[in-house]
């Protein structure tokens, strides 16, 4: 066994330890630990990524040397490693981008808790990404939920508590469903390790028995994860949770947490149920339709919204719709497009959240559109970043959003039935995106009538600005040279089976 | 090649007047205009004596569309008529335009306005001559459009709201007509392969059989389109609005010459593009005959009930022009000869009538027929001219009108279209009676104002010689045509032989 094969497990454990250690540390130290942790994990993931690319296949790491079916396994392929790396990067940028705000919004004494929670969150995300054991996945889903609730609630005001309660209930409902599906699956197959279940499931399916229970399993798991990732119409918890929590939380939640669940779903599709079985069930069509509806209704809600943060949150509903539409197409290309969109949306949405906070800060803290008038002149970099994010969301070439749109459309063309609805909704949703994002961009570039608010220069917020620049670069890189990423995704998906 | 000069000389002279900054002396202006008119007249008359058809390609618009000028008999007839009327009306305006000044003073502003009038007057003359000599449809179309645009300022000259509206109406009617015919142009270019006028038409038998339907449709559109200028029903409404509001000499040339551009267009389209053989006894001919007969009758009727003299004359123009169109639509030798002759007669007569009306307005300010009682006692010379000209228009023997109507009726009687060979002559006759009915009251009341007329206040109001001589000349020409028709008839029948 190569040395590098230890890295995934090590990084999960590191995160857990860091979380535990941080709970006893002061604010600064906790932050230092957290940042170091993320950087270290990033390096480990990068190393793993190179390793898997070099070997050209996924590897399985058996925890504590107990063999299957009792032991716990970790499996790392190109895609897993890449996701881990990407999550780390976004996490780092989001935390750092919202740090200043964090200090304002969270009580001094509780700041260290924030880092504890984010460490735990990272560990659960990594676990979701790497694990080969369905039950482990469930465990970390729960850890994830709790950590996420904490992240929402840590900004203590009425709204966030309400939002986190709502999030908690919906999430637990989701994980409950997931758990039920898990139980039934265990009942059917007698396994918890993904690869074993898949073998059994294929056998059961080909024998023709237990068709309905299998269908129910697929339904329960899909719906459970869909609730957790806020697929329309299960998105009721989302706008408040993203809209009122502190900005780093919003960025992390929208770009990482919900994406983690989607990644898990994709893994289940490929590694647990089997791509063909999943496709032959009708659930996929439901996901497709919900995806399309999400694209439209999410955007419509966003258009109606008068609060910039909530608008961005609703936009997430639409973007999640895109991802589910890709999954619902039932083709390899569709899933690949969804994977790419997970990345591009993560990069874009966190950028938008972080940039929005910069804009609202120079507008007296108000998030109402009318107050944002001319904000881009007061904080130039935030304005530019918001513009880039918006353009990317609208799908203007040179930015990452365009590539996802391109991939989605190309995937859609391969499916005769779903082609037209997908393409037309894609078109309409582009227009809707354009309406609310461009409205905002024009608003922030409209000079205000009076010099009510002070403006901010580069020097005042050096680190914040640097983070924004990083985000912009990330977006542009994904937009301009997407081919390596697309190749990686293709390679990774191939390793899944 | 004189005719090319006769086209561009007046146009350039007119443009010179238009762009000239200011006029110091009215005399100089008038001398310039008179000189330009005279030179043009000489140039046009010279073409008459030129031997052989001249051809002149001015320019190629595109590789297939040359601007081509060609002199043939039709050109000569029309251009001589045009230039004579222009000359007379021009001389008339020297006196008349004093009256059009806004406040009667000879201010700089009013000089400018008069200068504008003469400028456009000369341009119109050049354009009309260009139309006469146009050698193909595209050249014709080009100058047809320019004619509309350049004659519009004559209509709205006095600048009253009514005049401007009339000018716009004139513009839009004419343009819509032009565009209808442009529709045909595209198809002829394609299926006739050329737009050059040639006797007997350019539509080949093959094209006629393969695309007959669409070609007939375009022929109809072109007839209606060019018919707008000639005041043919259903697009006649502009004429009776626009002609009366213009200054009298301008009305004279509008009614006598510019409407003839429409007639010329129809002659060219029917006899030189589509050809008699293609159109004869088709639905197009039927519709055309119906439209023109309708217009004759309707025009006369409306003229009969119109109280304002100039408007009455305008309605008369509508009716008389459709005599010409009807003759053309019959498509036999007699009727066509009659039509062409009527072009000349109507041109001179109607110019004379309008100038008379103008002189009356100039001297007395009266516009309605009923106000003109005793006018014959006041200005006997003018009223005699009016009477003789009226007789010509009615078609009483010693005048040219009689000859042309004779030929028209004769042609109509021998028409091959069943039904029309009797309806046509009947309508012509009825309309002639109506013509008498609407023109002669002026004479009757003018000379016999009745017992209760107040002879005390009667004064001689004969206008100056600048006004009477043009009227006299025009009347004389119309009588001369009636007295010595042989030469003209010979000339016309040469044309008719070629095109039938």
């Amino acid at each position, binding site marked *: 066994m190569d040395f590098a094969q230890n890295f995934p497990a090590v990084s999960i454990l590191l995160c857990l330890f860091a979380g535990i250690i941080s709970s006893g540390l002061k604010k600064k130290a906790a932050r230092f630990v957290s940042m170091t942790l993320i950087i270290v994990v990033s390096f480990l993931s990068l190393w793993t990524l190179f390793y898997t690319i070099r070997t050209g296949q996924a590897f399985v790491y058996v925890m504590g040397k107990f063999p299957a079916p009792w032991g716990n396994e970790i499996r790392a392929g190109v895609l897993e490693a890449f996701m881990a790396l990407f999550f780390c990067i976004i996490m780092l940028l989001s935390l750092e981008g919202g740090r200043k705000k964090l200090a304002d919004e969270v009580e001094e004494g509780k700041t260290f808790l924030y880092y504890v929670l984010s460490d735990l969150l990272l560990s659960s995300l990594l676990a979701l990404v790497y694990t080969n054991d369905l039950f482990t996945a469930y465990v970390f889903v729960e850890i994830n939920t709790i950590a996420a609730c904490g992240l929402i609630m840590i900004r203590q005001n009425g709204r966030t508590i309400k939002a986190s309660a709502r999030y908690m209930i919906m999430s637990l409902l989701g994980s409950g469903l997931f758990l039920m599906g898990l139980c039934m699956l265990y009942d059917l197959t007698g396994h918890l390790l993904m690869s074993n279940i898949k073998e059994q499931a294929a056998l059961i399916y080909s024998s023709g028995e237990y068709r309905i229970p299998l269908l129910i399993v697929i339904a329960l798991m899909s719906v459970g994860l869909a609730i957790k990732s806020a697929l329309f119409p299960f998105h009721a918890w989302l706008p408040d949770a993203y809209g009122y929590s502190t900005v780093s939380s919003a960025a992390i939640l929208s770009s990482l947490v919900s994406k983690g669940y989607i990644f898990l779903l994709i893994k289940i599709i490929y590694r647990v149920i089997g791509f063909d079985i999943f496709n032959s069930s009708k659930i996929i069509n439901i996901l497709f339709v919900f995806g399309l509806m999400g694209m439209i209704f999410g955007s419509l809600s966003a258009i109606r919204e008068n609060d910039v943060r909530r608008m961005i949150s609703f936009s997430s509903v639409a973007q999640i719709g895109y991802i589910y539409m890709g999954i619902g197409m039932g083709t390899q290309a569709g899933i690949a497009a969804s994977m790419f969109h997970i990345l591009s949306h993560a990069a874009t949405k966190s950028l938008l959240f972080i940039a929005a906070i910069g804009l609202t800060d120079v507008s007296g803290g108000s998030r109402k559109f009318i107050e944002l008038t001319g904000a881009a002149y007061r904080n130039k970099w935030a304005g530019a970043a918001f513009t880039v994010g918006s*353009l990317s969301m*609208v*799908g*203007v*070439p040179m930015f990452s959003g365009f*590539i996802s*749109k*391109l991939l989605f*459309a*190309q995937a*859609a*063309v391969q499916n005769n039935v779903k082609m*037209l609805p997908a393409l037309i909704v*894609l*078109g*309409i949703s*582009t*227009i809707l995106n*354009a*309406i609310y994002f*461009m*409205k905002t961009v*024009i608003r922030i*570039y*409209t*000079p205000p009538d009076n010099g009510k608010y002070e403006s901010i220069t580069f020097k005042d917020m050096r680190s914040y600005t640097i983070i924004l620049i990083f985000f912009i670069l990330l977006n542009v890189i994904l937009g*301009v*040279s*997407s*081919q390596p990423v697309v190749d990686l995704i293709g390679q990774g998906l191939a390793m899944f089976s | 090649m004189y005719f090319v000069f006769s086209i561009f000389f007046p146009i350039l002279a007119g443009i010179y007047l238009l762009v000239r900054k200011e006029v110091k002396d009215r005399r100089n202006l008038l001398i310039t205009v008179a000189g330009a008119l005279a030179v043009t007249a000489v140039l046009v008359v010279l073409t008459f004596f030129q031997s052989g058809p001249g051809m002149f390609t001015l*320019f*190629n*618009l*595109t*590789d297939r569309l040359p601007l081509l000028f060609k002199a043939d008999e039709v050109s000569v007839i029309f251009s001589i008529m045009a230039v004579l009327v222009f000359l007379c009306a021009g001389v008339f305006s020297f006196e008349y335009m004093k009256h059009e000044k806004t406040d009667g003073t000879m201010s700089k502003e009013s000089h400018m306005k008069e200068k504008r009038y003469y400028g456009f007057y000369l341009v119109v003359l050049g354009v009309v001559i260009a139309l006469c000599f146009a050698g193909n449809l595209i050249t014709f179309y*080009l100058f047809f*459009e*320019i004619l509309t645009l350049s004659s*519009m*300022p004559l209509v*709205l000259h*006095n*600048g*009253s*709201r009514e005049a*401007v509206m009339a*000018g*716009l109406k004139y*513009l*839009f009617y004419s*343009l*819509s007509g032009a*565009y*209808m015919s*442009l*529709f045909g142009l*595209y*198809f002829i*270019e*394609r299926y006739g392969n050329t737009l050059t006028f040639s006797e007997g038409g350019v539509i080949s038998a093959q094209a006629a059989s393969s695309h007959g339907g669409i070609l007939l449709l375009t022929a109809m559109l072109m007839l209606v389109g060019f018919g707008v200028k000639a005041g043919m029903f259903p697009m006649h409404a502009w004429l009776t609005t626009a002609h009366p509001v213009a200054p009298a000499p301008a009305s004279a040339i509008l009614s006598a010459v510019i409407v003839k551009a429409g007639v010329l267009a129809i002659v060219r389209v029917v006899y030189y593009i589509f050809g008699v053989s293609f159109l004869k006894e088709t639905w197009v001919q039927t519709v055309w005959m119906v439209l023109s007969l309708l217009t004759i009758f309707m025009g006369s009727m409306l003229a009969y009930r119109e109280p304002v003299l100039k408007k009455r004359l305008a309605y008369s123009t509508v009716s008389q022009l459709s005599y010409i169109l009807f003759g053309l639509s019959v498509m036999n030798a007699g009727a066509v000869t009659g039509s062409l002759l009527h072009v000349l007669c109507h041109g001179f007569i109607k110019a004379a009538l309008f100038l008379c009306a103008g002189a009356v307005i100039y001297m007395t300010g009266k516009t309605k027929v009923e106000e003109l009682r005793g006018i014959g006692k006041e200005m006997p010379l003018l009223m005699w001219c009016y009477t003789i000209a009226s007789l010509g228009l009615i078609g009483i023997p010693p005048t040219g009108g009689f000859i042309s109507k004779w030929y028209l009726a004769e042609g109509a009687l021998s028409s091959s279209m069943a039904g029309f060979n009797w309806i046509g002559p009947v309508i012509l006759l009825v309309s002639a009676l109506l013509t008498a009915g609407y023109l002669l009251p002026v004479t009757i009341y003018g000379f016999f104002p009745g017992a209760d007329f107040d002879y005390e206040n009667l004064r001689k109001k004969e206008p100056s010689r600048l006004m009477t001589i043009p009227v006299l000349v025009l009347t004389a020409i119309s009588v001369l045509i009636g007295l010595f028709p042989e030469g003209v008839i010979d000339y016309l029948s040469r044309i008719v032989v070629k095109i039938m």
Partner: protein
Amino acid sequence: MILLVILIPIVSGALISLVPFKKRGHMELFLEMMVIINSFLVWYLLLHRPADNFTLVNFTGNLSVSFKVDGMSMVFAGLVSTLWPLATLYAFEYMTKEEHEKIFFTFYTMTYGVTLGISLASNLLTMYFFYELLTLITVPLVMHTLTREAILASRKYLYYSLGGAAFAFIGLIFIITYGNTTDFVLGGVLDLEKIGGRTNVLLLIYVIAFMGFGVKAAVCPFNSWLPDAGVAPTPVTALLHAVAVVKSGAFAAIRLTYYSFGTEFLRGTWAQDLLMIIVMFTIVYGCSRAVKETHIKRRLAYSTISNLSYILFGVTIMTPLGMMGALTHLVFHAVMKISSFFCAGAIMHQTGKHYVHELDGMGYKMPCVFGVFTVSSLALMGVPGLAGFVSKWYLASAAVESGNGIAYAGIGCLLISALLTAIYMFTIVIRAFFPVKGYDASVLEGIKDPNWKMLVPLLIFTGNIIMFGFWSAPVVKFLSDVAAGVY
């Protein structure tokens, strides 16, 4: 080299806002020099065409941003590069009365580069890319005055354009999927074997994409952004909303029809008929709205809508002759409309009047401007001897040639529209030169023709209108070669 001509304007535009110019004159000089140099480079490029593609970046797989100079590019790039220096000159004078000049010139100049990008794009993706960029970069120009009206207009413009592009994008996807390549090849790139039985779907997609690009070309029912966008300063309305932006839409439609889907595939289908009817409707609709409109610039904008559909009508005839007609009108309309817009701008600049009914008697005060306006009106009406006639002639000939019944009706629409054109243009001319008696002459005191910076472009355009009217042979020859695929 190709990249250079696209980048020079973009960079020099950026420089304007970055470099603190001491005097306004310096900035003008710099800008005009850059624009002229660039135009020369463009012409050099067009005359010495590089044979192969120049690829800038690869997006994914076979999708790349690359450039090439072919016949169509020569037409559009040549047109744009000729008009731009003149329009810039005009803008210098016009903008003296507006604020935020620097920002204006920044984007104005950048647009030059982006428009060249559209014209020089060698494949659909690149064109699409610059097409989107064009939308974004011209929004600040529409927004320029920052009044509420301007902001609403720019928002509308943005939504319409981006929305249109979203649907054009679907066409792009289909070309990627069913075509052999996304490069522009005259005659189309569709692979008939791949299509199989899906002809109707493809036709539907063609219609959608055509309408998508048609948004920029203001096809009805997607036309309402154009009159609204007239709130922008006149150089923008003239150059962008009569030439660069809207012609990009028409240009893209030509590319889509003739170079991507291919006329072989489309001719005689329901898609052709449908589009032709839409376009014909737009022709008449635009004109009739123009007649109703009393704001000069909005009136001209509606006129543009109608005239753009002339071009698209040529496109939908789907024969080489039709394409040639479309290209001819594309070039000639640019010259005609820019000159009439510049006249409108000159009027606004000199007098501050915006409405038709305020123009009584102005013709004598500003003879040059109204003289030019009259010439351009005549040309737009299609009076022979001016540029407009030539292009209409070819459009109509193409329609006759095609033998398509709907196209025949289309000729009728062209003529109706010509009549309406006469109405809406000539009411202005007549007001100016033949005011109704008793108009208030006192308000015209002190009004005079603008200075040389405005007049020179106007006179050059007028000269061109007349020259093309009488001597169009070389241009037309070139355009018909383009349509025949010689270049």
